[in-house]
C-alpha cells in the first residue's frame, strides 16, 4: 500500500515538472510601435504605465503595433510574438500582449498563465469595446491608455491568490477536476483494499482447495508433453484520431504554449 501511494505521488510530481518551462528574458520594450502610430514621448509615457502595472500585479504586459501579420492569422502572430520574445513572468509565464495590425485593421489580445484566468472571454470583449471607438478614430494613444487602465482595474478586481480564479474557459480547470476525481477514486480503492485485508485477518479459517503440502517430494514426473501450433489470427483496428485541439478560449501556439485571449476589428 505504501508503495502504491509513493508511486502515485511520484508520477504526479514527474508530470508537474514539465509544466515548469524556462523563464524568458525580459530584455524588450513594453511598447513596440513598428507601425509608427505614436510619438516618442507617448511611447515612454506608456512604458512607464506598463512598468507600474507589472510591478503591481506580477504579470507581463506588452503593446505591439505592426503594419501586417505577413499572411498569418492575427492570433497565431500574437501567440508567436509572445513566445518569440520570451514574454511572461515567473514559471507560468504570466503575461498579456495587445497587438494591432494596421493592414487588417484588427487587434488581438493574447494571455498566458494567470492572465488567462484574469482576462477571460468576457473581459477581453469588454476591453475591446471600450477601445474600438479610439482605434476607429485613429486616436491610438488614448486607445492604449484606456487599455492599460482597464488591464489595471481587471487585475485589481482579482483576489491576490489565484486558487479560485480558474473558472472561465479554462482547459486546465477541467484537467484539474479530472485529476481530483482520479485522486479520490484511487484513494477510495486503496482504502477499500486496506480495510478488506484487515477484515480478512479477522477470520483465518479457510478451506483448502488443493493438497500442495502433501505432494511427495520429487514425485512429480512429466512423461509426455507437446506444444502444437494450431493456427494464427491477426486483427487490425484503426487508431483513434487525435482529439481536436483548442476549443473554448485557450489554444496552443506553434511553440507549444497554451494561450488564452481574443480580439476584434476596428
Amino acid at each position, binding site marked *: 500500500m505504501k508503495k502504491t*501511494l509513493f508511486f*502515485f*505521488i511520484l508520477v*504526479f510530481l514527474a508530470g*508537474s515538472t514539465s*509544466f515548469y518551462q524556462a523563464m524568458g528574458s525580459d530584455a524588450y520594450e513594453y511598447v513596440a510601435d513598428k507601425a509608427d502610430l505614436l510619438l516618442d514621448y507617448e511611447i515612454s509615457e506608456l512604458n512607464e504605465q506598463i512598468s507600474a502595472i507589472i510591478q503591481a500585479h506580477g504579470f507581463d504586459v506588452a503593446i505591439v503595433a505592426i503594419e501586417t501579420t505577413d499572411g498569418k492569422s492575427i492570433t497565431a502572430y500574437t501567440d508567436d510574438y509572445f513566445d518569440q520574445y520570451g514574454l511572461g513572468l515567473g514559471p507560468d509565464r504570466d503575461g498579456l500582449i495587445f497587438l494591432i495590425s494596421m493592414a487588417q485593421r484588427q487587434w488581438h489580445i493574447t494571455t498566458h498563465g494567470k492572465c488567462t484566468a484574469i482576462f477571460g472571454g468576457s473581459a477581453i470583449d469588454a476591453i475591446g469595446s471600450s477601445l474600438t471607438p479610439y482605434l476607429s478614430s485613429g486616436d491610438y494613444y488614448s486607445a492604449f491608455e484606456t487599455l492599460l487602465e482597464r488591464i489595471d482595474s481587471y487585475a485589481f478586481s482579482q483576489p491576490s491568490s489565484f*486558487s479560485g480564479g*480558474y473558472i472561465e474557459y479554462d482547459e*486546465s*480547470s477541467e*484537467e*484539474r477536476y479530472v*485529476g*481530483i476525481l482520479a*485522486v*479520490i477514486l484511487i*484513494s*477510495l480503492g*486503496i*482504502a477499500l483494499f486496506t*480495510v478488506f485485508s*484487515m*477484515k480478512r*485477518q*479477522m*477470520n*483465518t*479459517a*479457510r*478451506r*483448502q*482447495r*488443493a*493438497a*500442495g*503440502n*502433501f*505432494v*511427495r517430494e520429487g*514425485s*512429480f*514426473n*512429466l*512423461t*509426455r*508433453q*507437446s*506444444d*502444437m*501450433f*494450431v*493456427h*494464427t*489470427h*491477426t*486483427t*487490425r*483496428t*484503426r*487508431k483513434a484520431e487525435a482529439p481536436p485541439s483548442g476549443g473554448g478560449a485557450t489554444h496552443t501556439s506553434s511553440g507549444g504554449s497554451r494561450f488564452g485571449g481574443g480580439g476584434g476589428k476596428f
Partner: protein
Amino acid sequence: MSVLEYKCPHCGGALVFDSGTQKMLCPFCDSSFDVEALRQHDENLKSLEQENINWDDLEESDWKRGELEDMILFSCSSCGGEIMGDKSTVAKSCPYCGNTAIMTKQVSGVLRPDCIIPFKLDKNAAKKALTGFYNGKPLLPGAFRSQNSIDSITGIYVPFWLFDCDAHAAIQYKATRVHMWSDSKYNYVKTDHYELFREGDISFERVPVDGSAKMDDSYMDAIEPFDYSAAVDFQTAFLSGFVADKYDVDCEQSKPRANDRIKASTEDAFSETVAGYSTCIPQKASISIEDGKIRYALLPVWMLNTKYNGKTYTFAMNGQTGRFIGALPIHWGKFWLYLTGISALLSTLGILVINLMF
C-alpha cells in the same frame, strides 16, 4: 495412406496430405500440420479418455485387549457430539457447544486408530496464542479483548483419514501467444493458438480429511499441516488428559473431498510446466488415482471457545505446530472509520499535489 483419417485440430475438417510440403493441410481453414504432431495429438486424445480412481480398503487394526474398556464415551445431549477419553477423564462440558449435560457410555463399534500425533503444546501455550491472535487486528472491538474470558479450552484428538496415492494425469490446454504492434494508422493484434498436452505422475502422502462432522472443515484445513514424522502407533495412554473425537464421517464419505484436493494439486503441478504463453486454459483433464491407501489417525488440536455479547467464538490451534485459527467479531464502526479515514487522508494528499501542479 492412413494419415488421411486425421482431422484438423482447429476446425475439425478432414485433412489432406500435401506432397510438396510433406505436411497435412486443412482445405477449410488453411492450417498445416506435421504428420508426427498429428500422430501424437491422436495419442494424447486417447490418454485423455482414461480415468480410474482406486482406493484400497482402509487398513484396519484390531483393538488390543482391555483398550476399549480403558476408555469412556461422552455424549452431549444438546448437540449430539461424542467424544472419547480415558477412564480418568472427567468431561464437564461439551467442547462443541459448551453444554454441561453430558452422558457417559461404553465405547464400542469404532475403529482403532492406525497412528496418533501426541500433543506437543499445552493448555498455556493455547491461551497465550489466543491473546497473540488479538494483536494486529485493528477491527477488533475494544471490549472483546477486555471483557473476553475463555469459556472452554479442550485438547482434542481429531479423527483424520489420511490418503496416500499415486496420481496419473493427462491434461490438454488451449494456449495463446499474443503480439501487438502498430503502424501510423492501425493497431495490430496477432494471436497464435496452441494446443498443449502434458502427461505424467505425481504422488501424495497423507492428505488429511477430518472425520468429524462437528469440526468445521475450514478450521481443520487451516491448521494444516501436521508433521507426520512425529506420528506414533496408537496407545490409549496418549488420551490421558485429553479427549478424542469419535469420527462420524467415515472414510468412504471422505473420499470425494480427498479426490478433489488431490486433483486440484495435480492440475496446479502440471500447469506450472506451461510457460511462455499469454493465456493458458485447461480444456480436458483426466486424473487417475492409483495405489490409494487410507489410514485412520488422531491428530492433536486445541479447541477454544470464548463468549462475547452472548455469541460463542471458536478458535483452533494445531496441538503440534501451534498454528492458530479463528474468527473474530468485526467492529463495523471501526471498519467505516478506517475506510473513510484512509480515503480522506490520501485524497487530501493527492489534491495537495494536484494544486501544486495546476
